[in-house]
């Protein structure tokens, strides 16, 4: 029996250090860890982050998504993890691991204006569905720009 595909969206505050270099390092580490998990248990997803917040979408078999999230919950470095949504999904929105930076520069502002306008970069004011949609759109943009 194959487990049904599930999607989970959460955000977390203050888990990343403010200094840009340190933040790059930490995000790189999170992404690397995430990719290892991907190989092992079939969980993919996307990261979105800025200075104060961090949002993640996890997609995969139900049990694997649950185990991955539980590992995150047990990690003392994650403060105030808020689970925004969790449930079955039709298909993966992110078949490979992806990430997006939602910074404060003018270029970013123009580009991710919809988030800035709606939330002032405060992920807590976005629904799980909205974070998923925004991330999805951003990742598609990146792919087109690279092509």
């Amino acid at each position, binding site marked *: 029996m194959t487990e049904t595909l599930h999607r989970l969206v959460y955000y977390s505050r203050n888990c990343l250090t403010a200094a840009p270099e340190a933040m790059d390092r930490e995000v790189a580490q999170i992404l690397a860890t995430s990719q290892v998990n991907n190989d092992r248990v079939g969980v993919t997803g996307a990261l979105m982050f800025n200075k104060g917040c961090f949002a993640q979408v996890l997609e995969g078999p139900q049990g694997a*998504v649950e185990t991955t*999230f*539980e590992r995150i*919950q*047990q990690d003392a470095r994650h403060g105030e*993890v*808020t689970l925004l949504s969790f*449930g079955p999904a039709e298909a993966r929105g992110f078949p490979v691991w992806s990430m997006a930076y939602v910074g404060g520069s003018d270029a970013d502002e123009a580009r991710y204006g919809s988030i800035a306008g709606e939330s002032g970069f405060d992920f807590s004011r976005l629904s799980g569905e909205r974070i998923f949609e925004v991330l999805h759109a951003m990742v598609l943009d990146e792919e087109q720009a690279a092509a």
Partner: protein
Amino acid sequence: MPAQIVRAHPVGYSDPGSLIEDLAVGVLVLGRLGDVVFANTLASAILAPIDAAGLTLDALGKELVRIGRWSTEAAAALCRITAAGSDRPCVVEENEGRALALTARARNDGGWVVTLDDVTHHRAANRIDQRDGLTGLASRGELDERLKAFLAAVQREGGQAALVCLDLDRFKAVNDTLGHPVGDALLKMVAQRLRSAVREGDVVARLGGDEFAILQIGGEQPQAADALARRLVDLIGRTYVAQGHMLNIGTSVGIALVPEDGLSADTLLRNADLALYRAKADGRGTFRFFKPEMDERMQARRGLEIDLRKALALKEFELVYQPQTRIEGDTVVGFEALLRWRHPDRGLVSPADFIPLAEEIGLITPIGEWVLRTACREAALWPDSITIAVNLSAVQFRGSRLLDTVTSALAGSGLAAARLELEITEGALLEDTDAVLAVLNGLRELGVRVSMDDFGTGYSSLSYLQKFPFDKIKIDQSFVRSMASDRDSAAIIRAVTSLGSSFGMTTIAEGVETPEQLARIRAEGCTEAQGYLISRPLTPEAARAFIAARVA
């Protein structure tokens, strides 16, 4: 008997070393300097690949730790074995799970004989009891044993520790709504989180149900326990996802410290439990350290409980009746029945002191039935125009017997249903809308009246006013008392009375004590009043006299 056998066949052994070789335990012989001068084959096999020859126990332990076979605690236990001077074997567990029982016996020449006995199988046989089947944590029995062993060591050598007891808030709701498989999965995850929060050497146990305990050994107390408790409240309170569900629970934590809060396992468990009780009473999702006054308060509560359990049988309860009047025309329309407990030694006990306790221990149901029957019987003696209001506890409201009890109280007294008015607090309405509405409608079908008590004090029950046609809204006395000084209170009273009149409900103000207050509530549109201005609560006889004087 083995001793006889050895004596009967001594010639089979060419030297004592050969005899030692044949023993089913590992043997190390230490010289006067504490170094290993002899190891039998079994000892060498147990310690391989380490060659024990020439090593002290200290050095041997360090080697075993270095190669990852033993924990530092096990090595320390090995070092202590010659110091302990006890015949009782000390059991150490290797990192791979093998258990070794160690003994040491002093020799005449100042050296030692140390035995190493593999007791893994023996321990495995006991394992079933030592481990909690669901979570794999230590069982209550195992915690008890470890605690006793630790306390014995503390009494010899001193030391600090904390016993941390916790249980889960809202776990029952998860179990009830999503079923035991989800509840069990959640308990396993909680167990994992507890393990992740403690240090090596601490004991994590499941005491049963959703109760857990941690023996935190070492660390600077109380700081270490404080840090652990904070971490537990945060960690256990984080959202879980299990079997497709998002689950939210919390935890309350109570802490007793060794040695100041007790040196016996029973005392420590009891004191940690008292602290846990306090944490729950203080709103859950928090932790409390044990304090001696918690014990005193608990003893007082226990005394009250014992007396309360007897009060009904000893007929120590009585009802008094406070008149309610219609403001226009100043006519008596009814009485509210109020419960009093007159104890021979305690005197008059305030309902605020015993009702919450009665609710907690389930006594409120029989007490509530007594109140209902007694009040109905008394009211049946009054003129037909006068109603009787009886308070219902949220606990009674949740129970399945309420409709039967009301039916039988009416039948037993011969009181017309329309003359009985049941007062329900906002709190009772919070729980489960559909079930609550079913009970309310059931009462309505019996023909009794239903009023909402203490309106405005708790949570907004406005939605209920729409869903269920209450006959009356009772405005809490706190608003009446403060309306002269607080404009908000006056505004609330005005809002409630206009709400009442638009829904076709009567509004009654409680706690009316002065003519000014009466004038004000009348001006705000309130239809009925109750309070000292009209009359104090009256004994049954006085109530009958009051009626005779006013309703003639």
